[in-house]
């Protein structure tokens, strides 16, 4: 194998599994260390710089970082990254003083943002400090998009959302709420230098062909519309017997909200097996905890209406069958169809994009599925002035993806407005710095805690079910949060190897607790992976290969289960190994100073 090019910022970035898995690439270990040091304000700002909504995401994120956490490769549970983020948000001090301070000198350019959700707000935050005049249009009464209309208050209190939305709006954004944009053409004629479309996936899927749909319409609701109705207080109650169709997070929000609005017998009925439901495992757990019955492997057949009133639904029982490629089919069992009683039904079987307001003759192409043709890197549409991001770009995903796409769209918009090539994007900000403080002292906590994941306490069910706005999760207290932070392996503190200094004493190889380091004869990657002390069978993890050493061997380190404990560097007599902190911040239109200045306590 060729020596690893560690100058490529993506090499060390990939070692920080959580950060690499995060769509916005938030430097997770960096803020976890700050939380451990009770420097919550700085921890918040590290988050804010990257993911814009730490308080929201610390409660509602889909957490792609957690399954990626290195910890799951040496024990069972990942670090509770998401809930630690919340600790930073809950305990932060005055963060506003560390944010860009307006008014900003104008650069004479005007941008329209359509939709007021996480993607648009991210674009606004990145572009406002550069002097853009930003106009944000949204049909709702306030900003936040689906974070406001679809995420119930018992998971995300309104104050938390308002605070973080206002941090952005206070940068001098011109907002036009309660304004439904009917025509993109009109907007374009408004003389904007660029338009960003962040309208999400606003249309909930229906079951229009199912018998009884029309007759029972009065008691059948589309999940996301119903949730929005609850959020904006148009809907204040629900009948006692409720069926929620669907197995995603929206279904979980629907059933749990129903329990709070009067639903006594709330059942979630889903086609797929329980384990394959789209909802996050913790969402399912919380629903079960609130006495919600989840009935899996049931396919809806009809709405049953009697005397003009919905009385329930009929379902066919199915079982999953997998072919040799693992593809699933749901085949009917021979059992009788099942009738389930219900007074009201909520349909939460997915949502889709809808662009009736975009004219098809303005040079903006749509594909065969009715989705705009958007570049995956630049988020530019075929109309050079129009950019997309969030669910509007590539279909429904999640908040953190919307934020990540917002950052990239903002970069493109800025390049476009400057008359530059949108494909020539600036490099990410990176910094690699030694953590050595003495002969064997590191500036980070290098010891590896064996504690198991701590559980976030919840408020009593008797209280939370009474009040729709009462937050269920209480968040970690500071002492528990500290213990949880110590589970973090500091994967961003990289093991940096300098060949010229190595005397091949094997000390690092001998001491490594997880047998990551091997000195051996070089070979092709597939062979080399087998020749290590423990064969490197996890192909998703790279090998760090040195140049040839004096004895003709090479040093090979399998990044897979490295604990970043620093023992290799401690036992190295010549400092050929060093522990160096790698900070990576994705390219942003307005790159804040990183690392953030030390804030005095």
């Amino acid at each position: 194998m060729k020596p690893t090019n560690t100058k490529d910022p993506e090499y060390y970035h990939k070692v920080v599994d959580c950060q690499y898995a995060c769509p916005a690439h938030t430097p997770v270990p960096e803020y976890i260390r700050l939380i451990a040091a009770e420097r919550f304000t700085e921890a918040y700002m590290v988050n804010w710089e990257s993911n814009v909504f730490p308080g929201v995401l610390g409660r509602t994120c889909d957490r792609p970082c957690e399954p990626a956490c290195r910890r799951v490769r040496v024990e069972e549970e990942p670090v509770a990254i998401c809930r630690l983020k919340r600790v930073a948000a809950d305990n932060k001090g005055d963060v506003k003083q560390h944010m860009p301070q307006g008014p900003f000198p104008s650069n004479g350019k005007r941008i329209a943002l359509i939709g007021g959700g996480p993607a648009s707000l991210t674009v606004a935050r990145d572009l406002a400090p550069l002097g853009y005049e930003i106009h944000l249009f949204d049909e709702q009464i306030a900003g936040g998009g689906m974070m406001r209309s679809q995420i119930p208050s018992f998971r995300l209190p309104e104050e938390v959302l308002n605070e973080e939305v206002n941090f952005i709006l206070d940068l001098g954004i011109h907002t036009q709420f309660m304004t439904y944009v009917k025509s993109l053409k009109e907007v374009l004629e408004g003389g904007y230098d660029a338009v960003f479309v962040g309208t999400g996936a606003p249309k909930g899927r229906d079951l229009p062909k199912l018998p009884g749909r029309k007759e029972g319409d009065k008691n059948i609701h589309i999940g996301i519309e119903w949730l929005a109705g609850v959020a904006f207080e148009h809907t204040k109650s629900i009948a006692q017997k409720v069926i929620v169709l669907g197995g995603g997070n929206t279904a979980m929000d629907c059933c749990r909200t129903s329990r709070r609005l009067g639903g006594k017998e709330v059942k979630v009925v889903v086609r797929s097996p329980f384990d394959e439901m789209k909802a996050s495992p913790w969402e399912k757990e919380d629903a079960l905890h609130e006495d919600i019955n989840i009935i899996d492997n049931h396919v809806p057949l009809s709405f049953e209406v009697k005397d003009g009133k919905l009385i329930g639904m009929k379902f066919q029982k199915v079982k999953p069958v997998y072919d040799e490629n693992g593809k699933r089919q749901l085949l009917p069992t021979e059992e009788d169809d099942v009738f389930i009683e219900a007074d009201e039904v909520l349909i939460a079987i997915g949502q889709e994009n809808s662009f009736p307001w975009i004219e098809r003759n303005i040079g903006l192409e749509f594909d065969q599925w009715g989705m705009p043709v958007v570049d995956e890197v630049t988020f530019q549409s075929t109309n050079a002035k129009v950019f997309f991001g969030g669910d509007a770009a590539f279909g429904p995903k999640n908040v953190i993806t919307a934020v990540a796409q917002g950052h990239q769209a903002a970069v493109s918009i800025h390049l476009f407005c400057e008359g530059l090539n949108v494909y020539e994007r600036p490099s990410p900000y990176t910094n690699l710095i030694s953590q050595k403080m003495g002969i064997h002292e590191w500036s980070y906590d290098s010891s590896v805690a064996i504690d198991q994941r701590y559980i976030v306490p919840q408020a009593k069910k008797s209280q939370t079910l009474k009040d729709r706005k009462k937050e269920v999760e209480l968040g970690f207290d500071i002492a528990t949060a500290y213990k949880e932070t110590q589970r973090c392996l500091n994967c961003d503190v990289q093991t940096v190897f300098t060949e010229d200094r190595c005397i091949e004493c094997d000390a690092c190889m001998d001491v490594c607790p997880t047998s990551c380091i091997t000195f051996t004869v070089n070979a092709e990657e597939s062979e080399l992976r087998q020749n290590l002390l423990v064969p490197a069978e996890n192909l998703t993890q790279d090998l760090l290969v040195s140049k040839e050493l004096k004895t003709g061997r090479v040093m090979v380190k399998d990044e897979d289960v490295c604990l970043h404990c620093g023992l290799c560097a401690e036992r190295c007599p010549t400092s050929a190994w060093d522990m160096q902190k790698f900070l990576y911040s994705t390219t942003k239109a307005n790159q804040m100073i990183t690392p953030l200045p030390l804030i005095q306590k």
Partner: protein
Amino acid sequence: MSYLKPLFRHPKLPKNKLGYTQKEYEGSLSTLCAGCGHDSISAAIVQACFEMSVEPHKVAKISGIGCSSKTPTYFLGNSHGFNSVHGRMPSVATGASMANKDMVYFGVSGDGDSASIGMGQFVHVIRRNLNMVYIVMNNGCYGLTKGQDSATADQGSRSKAGSVNPFQAIDLASLAIELGATFVAQSFSGDKQQLVPLIKAAMHHKGFAFLNVISPCVTFNNNPGSTKSYDYVREHIEATSTLDFVPEMPEIKTNYEKGKSTRVAMHDGTLIQLNKLATDWNPEDRVSVANALQHARTKNEILTGLLYVNTEWKDLHGTLSTCSTPLNKLKETDLCPGTEVLKEINAGYR
């Protein structure tokens, strides 16, 4: 500084016949200097014992005083250990072996502990052919007292401070062969590929197995001009043979080109497969070994690998005709069989 090794291990760590991973053979985190050759030897012992599926409780580690003698803390943490008086490890090992002949005895010593203060004990334990593995971690200096030349420092070797050693070195391997040691090998801490099979073979040898392992003192004797530095040893190393220890199956794997191959059968039926690299050398002929060592010395070479093996000589228990049951397992009824038996014995002398 870390004092504890993290408890997590590679989830796919191989297991041996006993179902143990290497973790069960490790000791505490070393407090020796970073890069010390001794740590590599400790790791080689761990690897050898793991691969041979030795039951940790059937091993005793005995040492004297010095950096080398600290190492038993850093390997085989589940085995017995005795950190004894300076240079007196052989006495303690002899006593232990007399009491319980069923254990594997690792004597760990250094050049000071064996070639200076413990020389008297060293020669006598060889003379008695005690069944043990005697490892000298030889760095040619007194690392624990800041690196003065030891008795194994080569004449002309330059110390870190710049002084040149005026005295002749004691060659422990030659001395052991001269005294009739029945298994003599030399190796280098930086060459585990050679060291691990040597340790395995030494553990299987019934009798005194001597391993002189050059182990650079990275703090005090790894400077240019030293003859025990990593660089010097790597440049001057000359192996007698490549060696494979064959526990059961006579299957041979080697990474070197094959030369003339010899097999030596051990008492317990295991084999040592030697692929000879040196000419005019026969591992079962003391004279040829002594000659090979002398030749190497004149050429400033360090001859490594298995030097000499003799499987015919009786070990101490054999010479003394001790009973087959270890002495510590003999009950009072065995030792004091009663007046009737005593009468019979006495009658035998009349």
